[in-house]
């Protein structure tokens, strides 16, 4: 367990030191900035569609770091060293998911504050957006790591990563955006269910992919 935590800590440090944690954040804020330019400065309209746009931005921001989540460790033989030390591939995948979320979830929750201001979301909507993102981002991190493991060893798999990950993230988008309305509690519960399912299954899928990649 101590070793497992050391692995999580190492990945979190790598994410923050390499500036990798910053990239999705900047992307997220960039979308929030560009969106009013495209839609026009109509405050009512922005407030109406802004929450959904931020969910889209969060989804796409989660796609950005996928090629750097697992591939460098695989190339460097780090994953082999974990396996030699008796860590199961599922445990490694779970560590990567937790670390990826720590490097991606909290900054995104923070960035949602200025983004909501840019899109003129009211306080109640912002609260529901934050709640939804807090529930949904672990699943986005899990999907990211799983996709990253699945495309391991493939060259130029960036587009493939999007094709693999985005369809699986559709439930998160539907329920996440659905929860933004005033009667969104039902959608929020479904978001929780979908996120739980994806987060629970992803370590096993990613672990199997890591094992297959070693052969």
């Amino acid at each position, binding site marked *: 367990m101590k070793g497992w935590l050391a692995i999580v800590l190492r990945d979190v440090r790598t994410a923050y030191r390499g500036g990798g944690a910053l990239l999705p954040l900047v992307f997220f804020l960039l979308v929030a900035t560009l969106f009013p330019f495209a839609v026009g400065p109509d405050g009512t309209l922005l407030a109406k569609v802004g929450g959904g746009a931020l969910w889209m931005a969060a989804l796409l921001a989660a796609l950005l770091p996928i090629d750097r989540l697992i591939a460098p460790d695989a190339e460097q033989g780090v994953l082999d*060293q974990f*396996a*030699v030390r008796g860590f199961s591939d599922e445990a490694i995948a779970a560590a990567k998911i937790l670390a990826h979320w720590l490097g991606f979830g909290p900054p995104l929750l923070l960035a949602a504050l200025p983004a909501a201001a840019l899109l003129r979301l009211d306080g109640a909507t912002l609260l529901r957006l934050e709640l939804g993102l807090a529930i949904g981002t672990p699943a986005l991190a899990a999907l990211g790591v799983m996709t990253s493991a699945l495309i391991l060893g493939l060259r130029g798999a960036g587009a493939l990563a999007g094709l693999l990950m985005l369809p699986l993230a559709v439930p998160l988008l539907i329920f996440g955006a659905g929860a933004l309305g005033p009667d969104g509690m039902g959608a929020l519960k479904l978001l929780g269910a979908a996120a739980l399912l994806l987060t629970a299954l992803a370590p096993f899928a990613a672990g199997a992919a890591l094992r297959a990649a070693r052969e």
Partner: protein
Amino acid sequence: MTARLAFDRVACLRGDRLLFEGLSFALGAGDAALLTGPNGAGKSSLMRLAAGLLVPSAGKIDLHGRIAHAGEAPALDMRLPLARALGFWAGIDGSEEGAVRGALERMGIANLAEVPVHMLSTGQRKRATLARILASRAEIWLLDEPGNGLDTASLGRLTEAMAVHRAGGGIVLLATHQPLDLPDALPIVLGKTTP
């Protein structure tokens, strides 16, 4: 518990190519094996089998003791200073305080402790990989071409480290194309039958 590594009629199939079959040997505390053979004969695959990274297609591998595997890649964080990159593995292995320092000194790279790994030369990275092995508390060393890119002095250090490890009851499985001094090592020659 004494260290032990034994192959019992092990076969290795990569894709649809049979690299070797019916391979049996046993190594106990203080033993060493010298693995030779042409490129592609399956030396690295044998190492990965012993490390548990591959599953044998047939036969059994009996293993007692912890493993340290030095493959092609150093498995060190490129951006970190060398000592901290090694410290990560030492922490996971539960090595005692000062193990990294000692390992760096034994490989003659103590002066590089604060240098980021990506700045190291090929030979220095090889020595860093060996320092990782030294700092681990593993009984069984699997060294895949550890001498590549090493200068004569470093080869001497490697030879000495292997001798000390064996004297302490460790096992060394060494694959190399270079003449490295490994007294009383069991020779394992792969790829004799392939033309």
